[in-house]
Structure formats: structure tokens, C-alpha cells
């Protein structure tokens, strides 16, 4: 404590009995939040541990707590389920492509905004519009943009000079393109703001020194600015990566994982399994695997954080 004044004066001025003990107040204040989280996070986790060793299907008429115990059959099943492993790999692919594109576009844009010009604030205001839109509505807009009679095909028609009415969302090979573009459109603005914050909050003397010593712009960018901004940039990539891994809304609106299972992400696979095929026990096993994977992913992150002193 750097505050000598209150710490040293308080005990003499305030009688001890009028001061409530410190720890109970801290716990009392955190209790409402903690209890809510326990109800909505811990209780479901315990239920998952039970459901994943049952074959509970809500349509069968038995209550979930009376479902039949089937051991580790669900996990064995998951291991051989191509649809599950495909969804997992596809999700990782979508994360890499989306976050990569978002980062490159955001970095390019941020470099354009480093100096000041008259309508800079207005331009930022317009550029961040996509991240304000409800994700479901962003997907709704892309659903219409990529329709066979939509404006995207119109532009391609004009460029090609012949009618182009391709049904993007109905083609298993190409349906991921509108999904990825919707995601990139919506979240590049956040990446842009983060990269811009990272680049403009740099200590300026080093950049000034490099400029006056005649270093080339590319050298300044790669040798000074990006390394200095690395903590913010890594945080941006991490946050977007984690959020994109959960991708659900845009795929649900655009394709529901179809055609077939060609655009199923992990979240959509689990949604379809639980709410279309009603295989709750099976999906609970998948959910448990995902929870464990996330925890395993968090542990090295926490180590990293501690090494860098918080």
C-alpha cells in the first residue's frame, strides 16, 4: 500500500467496533454474482457428467435423471463419428481463415489511420458500423446479398458480361464463403479498433528516432511498431479466435450447417445433434470433450500470463 495517510490514521480516529470486519464485506458483495454463476455454470457441468454416460433422448418419455446408464459408449461413438471430427476441423479452419483475414485487413486499415485528416473520425464511425449490428441480422443481410438473385451475383454478372445466378448457399463446396465473409465483415471493425489502439498508444520516441535516422517505412513497421504493439495484437487475435471458435448465429441463419453437413461448425453440430436429432446424451459427451479442451487450452495461457507478470 502506497497510501500512508488513511492506513496509518484510520485506526486512531475511527473506533474499532464501528469498522465492519473487512473480509465478510468482500465476500458479501461477491455472493450474488457467484451464486448466479454457480447455478448457470456449475450445475450444468455436473449434469453433463451424468448425461454423457446415458443415452437420454427427451422424446423417449423418461426424465433425464432416470435415463439408462450406458457407460462410455457415447465417447467411443464420437471417436468414430466423421461428422464430429469434420465439424471440429472445419471450425478450426474457419477460425484460422476468419481471424487471419480480419487481422490483415485491420492492420492495413489501421496504417491508413495513423495520421490525422479532416474526416478521420467520421470514417472511423462508418467503419465500425458492422460490429454494432445484431449478428443474426448481419447473417440475414448476407443471406440476401448471396442469394442466387442477389446483388453479389449481379456484380459478377456485370463483370463477366453474362448472366450469373449461382446459388452459393446451396453448394457444399462454396457455402462456407458467405459464412466466412459475413463473419469477417462483422468483426474486422473490432480488430481494426484494437490494432489502431495498439499502434497509436506506442511510445513515440522510438518511432521518431527511427524516422529521423532515415529508416524505411517497412522497417519501422516490422522492426519497431509491430513488436512494440505485440501484446495488444496478440490479445486481439486471441479474443477473436476464441469468439470465432464458438461460431453459431451466422451459420444457423445462412445454412443451418447444410447442405448436408457441409458447413457444420462444432456449435452447429451440437445444436443439430441435441435439438434436431434429440441425442442429448451423445451431445453431452461432445460438450464435455469441448469443455475439457477449453480448460487444457486455458492452462498454458495462464502460465504465459504469469510469466509476463499479469
Amino acid at each position, binding site marked *: 500500500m502506497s*497510501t500512508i*495517510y*488513511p492506513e496509518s490514521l484510520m485506526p486512531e*480516529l*475511527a473506533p474499532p467496533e464501528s469498522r465492519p470486519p*473487512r473480509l465478510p*464485506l*468482500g465476500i458479501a*458483495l461477491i455472493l450474488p*454474482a457467484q451464486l*448466479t*454463476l454457480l447455478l*448457470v455454470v456449475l450445475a*450444468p457441468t455436473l449434469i453433463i457428467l451424468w*448425461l454423457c454416460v446415458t443415452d437420454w433422448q427427451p422424446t423417449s418419455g423418461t426424465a433425464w435423471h432416470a435415463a439408462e446408464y450406458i457407460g462410455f459408449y457415447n465417447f467411443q461413438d464420437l471417436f468414430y463419428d466423421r461428422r464430429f471430427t469434420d465439424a471440429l476441423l472445419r471450425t478450426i479452419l474457419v477460425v484460422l481463415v476468419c481471424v487471419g483475414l480480419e487481422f490483415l485487413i485491420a492492420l492495413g*486499415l489501421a496504417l*491508413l*489511420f*495513423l*495520421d490525422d485528416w479532416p474526416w478521420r473520425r467520421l*470514417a472511423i*464511425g*462508418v*467503419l465500425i*458500423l458492422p*460490429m*454494432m*449490428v*445484431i449478428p*443474426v*441480422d*448481419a447473417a*440475414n443481410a448476407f*443471406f440476401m*446479398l448471396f442469394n442466387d*438473385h442477389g446483388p453479389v451475383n449481379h456484380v459478377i454478372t456485370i463483370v463477366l458480361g453474362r448472366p450469373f445466378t449461382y446459388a452459393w448457399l446451396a453448394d457444399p463446396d462454396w457455402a462456407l464463403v458467405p459464412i466466412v465473409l459475413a463473419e469477417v*465483415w462483422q468483426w474486422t*471493425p*473490432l480488430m481494426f479498433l*484494437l490494432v489502431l489502439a495498439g499502434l497509436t498508444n506506442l511510445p*513515440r520516441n522510438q518511432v521518431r528516432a527511427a524516422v529521423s535516422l532515415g529508416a524505411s517505412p517497412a522497417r*519501422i513497421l516490422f522492426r519497431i511498431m509491430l513488436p512494440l504493439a505485440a501484446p495488444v495484437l496478440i490479445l*486481439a487475435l486471441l*479474443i477473436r479466435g*476464441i469468439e470465432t471458435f464458438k461460431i*453459431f*448465429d451466422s451459420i*444457423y*441463419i445462412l445454412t443451418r450447417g*447444410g447442405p448436408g453437413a457441409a458447413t457444420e461448425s462444432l*456449435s452447429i453440430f*451440437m445444436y443439430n445433434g*441435441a*435439438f434436431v436429432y434429440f441425442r*442429448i446424451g451423445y451431445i*453431452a459427451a461432445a*460438450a464435455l470433450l469441448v469443455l475439457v479442451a477449453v480448460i487444457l*487450452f*486455458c492452462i498454458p495461457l495462464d502460465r504465459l*500470463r504469469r510469466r509476463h507478470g499479469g
Partner: protein
Amino acid sequence: MAVQGILPSWSTALKRFAVLAAMALSFLPIFWLLSTSIKPHEEWAAFPPVWVTTQPTLQNYRIVFAPESAREFAATQSGSLDYKVAGSAWKAFGDSALISTAATFLSVLFGTLAAYSISRFGTGGSTYPLQLLSLRMFPPIAVVVPMVALFSLLKLTDTYLGLIIAYTAFTLPFSIWMVRSFIDEVPTELEGAAMVHGLTQFQAFLRVTLPLVRGGILATALFVFILNWSEFLFALTLTSGHVTTVTVQVAKYVSASSGTLYGVQAAMGAISTLPVIAFGYLIQRHLVRGLTFGTVKQA
């Protein structure tokens, strides 16, 4: 700015053009939503598509909000459109407003108390805030599956209370982290001085710290409200018709297999997203802080 001049100056015009192109692309999907929402029925799926209609109409908005307009429209169409256009979006807006407001209030109230406790007493230890953050890493669908079972046991399925509890819990990490970043900026000396004058710690929190972070708490509330209003997965899986949110209503109109109601779905899309866009610009300064859990402040 210090970094001015690291790019060659001949490219200024090119740079401005790139910015304008990016602005146009940012606006295009919104433009399409708005433009389609006022198109008459014949132009919804015309090819080549109509970019700006010459016969603007409010019919699509009437179909969204007035059941009798929806029935009239459905009668002119072949097939069974009734189930999609029937019903008024007023119910969805009312339900969303009620659930989002209640959940926002609880989340920010609990979040502020917890944030103060963490900031001033270090409750839960040094890793507790990070544990809260890791809750945001779990895909919500993994929690939804057992929650369906839990809610059926507690009779919370398809109720307002059920969604309010779910939304409160899932925005709590945001509330706690964001409010904590504001409280951390208030020097503890201020509370110390108040306590010297005879206030208890809790009174000092209420009368000294809270008024100072009022703006931050309001920004947090608006941010959490946006998250709640935009939420889709819980609304989709924990309700079955009695309670409807705007996001579920949008999905109802889009329905991938037979999406031919472009005008109507555009009208619903435009009107449902406008409130949160307005709120978003109100807290523009704090958006980055919110979406990065208070760790990055906007330039």
C-alpha cells in the same frame, strides 16, 4: 501524430480512396437491408436485382407488425406462408425489451458489487478474474444442453425468468471486468479519506466511489443491454413459443429452406438492429473496453 510520414506522401489520394472503399463495403449489407425493406413484393427477388426501388412502400413493415396485413399478404401467396408471417413482432420486441432490461439490471448490479469486492479486497485471489474470463471461452451450446435438463427440472423452460437468469449469468464476466476497470481508476485514498470522516467502507463505496464511476456503470449497462438484445442461442433453445425474442423472430422469417420473404425479413432485420446501433454509437468510446473485458482502451 508521431508516426506521420512513415508512408510515402504521394499515396495520400490512394489512401483516401482505400478508406472510402472500405466505408462503402462496411455500409453495403446495411444498405441492402434498408433498401430491400421498402421494396414492393414484385422486386424482392427480381433479377437483375433492384438496388434502389422507385416505388418505396411500408407494406413490409406493416406485415411485420400488423397481423391483419400479414394475413392479407399470405392470402395473395400460394403455399402455406401463414405460419411464417402470422403473428406480430410487437410481442418479440416487448419480450426482448423486458428480458434484456431485467437481465442487464441484475448483471450490472451483481457485477458492480463483485467488481468492487475484487478491486478493493482481492476476493477470490489473483486468478479469480481470469477464471471468470475463461467462462466466456466455453461455447454456450456446450452449457445449453445440460441447461435444458436443468430448466425442465426447475420448470424454467420457456419462461421470462429462465432467460433472465441465463442472460444475467452469461454477461456477468463482462459486467465484472468492465466495471472493475472503472473502479480501479478511482484512487483508494478517496475512500480512505471518507472513512477517516467516520463512514464505513460500504458507505464510502456508495457515496464516494459509486458516483465517480456512474458514467462507467452506465456505459457497461448499455454494453450489456446490446449483448442481451443480440443474443440468439439461448433464446432459440430455452424457449418454445411462449416467449419470443427479436432474434428468434428474425430467424423465423429467414428460415433457410424457403427464404422467399426477403422484403419482410429485411424489414424485421432493419427495425430490430436499429436500437442497438443507436446504443452502440452512444458508448462508442467504451466499446473496445467492453469487448476486450476492460483490458484495452480505445485510442
